């Protein structure tokens, strides 16, 4: 079998690089991580003409090969390491026809590495609208490459790009300019010392601190002697290099590109006047958030009810069809209800990711950054913290990774520390089920009380995040330079394919990631709930029957008494009652206690745990919600989930740090256990105190 052609997709952010990737690979893609770091690695397969296949990597977006973040490092490390198994046979540089000048800077750098390179000019459908004309043969000659003029929106030019990739061996590898002219003496010396290496490659190694693998280590050490220039000198040279590259690009585009400004239309300026307006801007942002929450709540009710009842009948059906025994019980009472507790939230999580990816794809998110920067800075955050805080509503893990483009370390650290307060989708299952139990139905101004409660919880999450940022800003003594540069891309109608793939990918990883933990925990819980150490458990039937012998109760009631007696004396019941004194002041019983303890692995386990605990020993087909509504407070009487205990639970989940994966990510991003441990202790203690006060006031 012939080897696949390795293709690396490289480009500035906002050039539609991911659209090109999606157009080439379709559903043949997978998302993982680069080993050892949490940068997302997207790769896929693409069929080329004549039965050849290409292995395509979508590298993180970058403005140049001078990396300033972990994500950008990935690009340069791959391009400099010929021994990497993903080292590209051909690089495809994706550019946007409207920003060709800036996009070409990165292109000229990659050409200097002498990798065969194809230039893709995307969004060609906007050329007429913008009055742009390109002289492609001239540009191909000047830039020493082949150009694919494509439009992912209209699906044009993709086949031409595939043909170019298949014929990559015909591409020239000559650089377009001679960058060493910026300091001929220095570069000549470099060339003499390392005759077998590319000078530009050496220059990249000198100017930045990246890991180039074992092979090049010795040479990198030898290069130390060339770091004689001071940092300021090197930076001045880098500036000179940038100017030189722009001179070449300007000269090339002067002949190769004509822009007729008269026929150019610009919607961006008009839209920006409204969307970044000091009054309208904020109102629109607030309205968008309102729609987001109304959508998550109101529009997902039907599919969720359907999933809930389907799992209840599936569990019932399993019991009826399979022969009686421990395995059937494990399946019907442990695994199926546990899985139901996660599947039920797919509609909501999909909706959340849908809206967030539309906001990002359309270019609106940058406007929010611009609008919020001044306000956020008062709290020690950056305008760029808004993106993590909003995507934190999906999941804190990608949100914390999204802090990487915050230039100031202090602003970034504070953002990382407070992001877990935002209401992530794992809290959603807990909120939804408790809200539906304790908040009355009804509407005010067309918005349901339940949706408003949910919105309030999101606001509490944001509010706490901002408030704790303010405190951290006062407490933390870190000096760091703050640079703030944010590109304001043109507005774009989001591509259905891109949005759909994002939603699919994110939902899938949420369900499978959480699903594994939930499955494991529900099996363990089922065992702990189905077996007990003492005679009290083993002789439950006898004990209960004797004690109720004098009373006239139906056999059905008797069965229930037996089941609850068994549960109380099972392993889980014993553990639960041991911790009960600590949580009783918060209004919880030992079953909720078990659910809380197990959700320190991950919050969404809460519902699955309760579903498993409640279904052990129950014969009837019941939805999770009905079972919870039927629970009675053993001491005070009345429903266990009442207004006071419900609010107390909601607040506990709003503040507590119950997510091992988030702690692991914080450890990795801050490179210390100090910060995640602080989060765990302070957030959870705070949650306990608030929940305690709330319950004692409301009861």
């Amino acid at each position, binding site marked *: 079998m012939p080897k696949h052609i390795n293709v690396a997709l490289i480009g500035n952010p906002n050039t539609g690089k991911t659209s090109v990737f999606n157009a080439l690979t379709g559903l043949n893609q997978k998302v993982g991580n680069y080993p050892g770091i949490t940068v997302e690695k997207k790769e896929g397969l693409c069929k080329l003409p004549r039965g050849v296949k290409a292995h395509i990597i979508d590298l993180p977006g970058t403005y140049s090969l001078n990396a300033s973040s972990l994500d950008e490092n990935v690009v340069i490390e791959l391009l400099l390491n010929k021994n990497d198994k993903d080292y590209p046979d051909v690089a495809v540089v994706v550019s946007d026809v409207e920003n060709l000048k800036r996009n070409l800077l990165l292109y000229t750098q990659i050409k200097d590495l002498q990798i065969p390179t194809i230039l893709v000019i995307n969004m060609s459908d906007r050329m007429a609208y913008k009055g742009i004309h390109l002289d492609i043969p001239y540009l191909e000659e000047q830039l020493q490459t082949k150009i694919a003029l494509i439009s992912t929106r209209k699906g044009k030019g993709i086949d031409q790009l595939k043909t170019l990739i298949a014929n990559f061996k015909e591409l020239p590898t000559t650089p377009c300019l001679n960058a060493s002219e910026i300091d001929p003496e220095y570069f000549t010396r470099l060339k003499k010392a390392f005759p077998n290496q590319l000078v530009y490659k050496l220059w990249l190694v000198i100017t930045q601190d990246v890991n180039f693998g074992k092979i090049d280590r010795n040479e990198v050490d030898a290069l130390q002697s060339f770091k004689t220039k001071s940092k300021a000198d090197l930076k001045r040279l880098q500036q000179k290099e*940038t100017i030189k590259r722009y001179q070449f690009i300007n000269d090339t585009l002067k002949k190769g590109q004509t822009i007729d400004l008269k026929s150019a239309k610009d919607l961006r300026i008009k839209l920006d006047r409204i969307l*970044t307006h000091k009054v309208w801007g904020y109102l629109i942002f607030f309205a968008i958030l309102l729609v987001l929450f109304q959508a998550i709540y109101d529009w997902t009710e039907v599919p969720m009810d359907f999933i809930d009842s389907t799992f209840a009948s599936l569990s019932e059906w399993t019991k009826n069809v399979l022969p009686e025994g421990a395995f059937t019980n494990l399946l019907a009472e442990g695994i199926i209800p546990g899985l139901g507790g996660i599947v039920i939230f797919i509609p909501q999580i999909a909706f959340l990711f849908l809206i967030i990816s539309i906001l990002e794809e359309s270019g609106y998110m940058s406007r929010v950054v611009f609008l919020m920067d001044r306000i956020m800075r008062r709290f020690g955050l950056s305008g760029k913290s808004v993106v993590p805080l909003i995507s934190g509503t999906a999941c804190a893990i990608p949100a914390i990774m999204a802090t990487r483009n915050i230039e100031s370390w202090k602003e970034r650290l504070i953002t990382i520390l407070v992001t877990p307060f935002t209401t992530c989708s794992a809290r959603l299952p807990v909120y939804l089920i408790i809200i539906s139990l304790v908040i009355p139905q009804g509407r005010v101004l067309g918005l349901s009380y339940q949706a408003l409660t949910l919105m309030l919880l999101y606001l509490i999450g944001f509010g706490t995040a901002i408030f704790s940022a303010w405190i951290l800003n006062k407490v933390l003594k870190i000096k760091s330079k703050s640079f703030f540069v944010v590109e304001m891309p043109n507005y774009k109608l989001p591509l259905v394919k891109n949005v759909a793939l994002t939603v699919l990918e994110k939902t899938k990883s949420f369900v499978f990631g959480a699903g594994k933990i939930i499955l494991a925990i529900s099996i363990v819980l089922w065992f702990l709930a189905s077996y007990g150490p003492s005679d009290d458990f083993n002789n439950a039937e006898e004990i209960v029957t004797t004690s109720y012998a004098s009373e006239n109760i139906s056999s059905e009631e008797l069965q229930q008494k037996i089941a609850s007696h068994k549960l109380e004396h099972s392993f889980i019941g014993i553990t639960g009652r041991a911790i009960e004194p600590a949580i009783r002041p918060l209004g919880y019983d030992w079953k909720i206690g078990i659910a809380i303890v197990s959700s320190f692995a991950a919050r969404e386990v809460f519902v699955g745990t309760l579903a498993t605990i409640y279904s052990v020993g129950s014969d009837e087909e019941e939805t999770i919600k009905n079972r919870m509504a039927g629970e009675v407070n053993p001491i005070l009487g009345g429903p266990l989930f009442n207004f006071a205990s419900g609010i107390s639970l909601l607040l506990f989940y709003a503040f507590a740090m119950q997510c091992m994966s988030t702690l692991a990510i914080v450890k990795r991003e801050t490179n210390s256990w100090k910060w995640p441990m602080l989060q765990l202790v302070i957030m959870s203690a705070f949650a306990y105190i608030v929940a305690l006060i709330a319950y004692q006031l409301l009861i």
Partner: protein
Amino acid sequence: MQITLADIKRGQQGIITDVSSIHIPLKLLEMGCLPGNQVELLQVAPFADPLYLNINGTHLAIRKETAIHILITISNA
């Protein structure tokens, strides 16, 4: 007349004459913030910061504390 980029008004255009490369991130230079290039102030965020600029065809926003390190001459009034 030379002024800093932090002092221009909305709608004004200028030519960049000097950037203090120690105070300016390389990324900003790479996005086109270099001597000789044209710059226009498109929009100012609420509370007078950050600034939304068109530099050499690239639309971007920077804070005032960065803008004071970029010198320009006004080319339209």
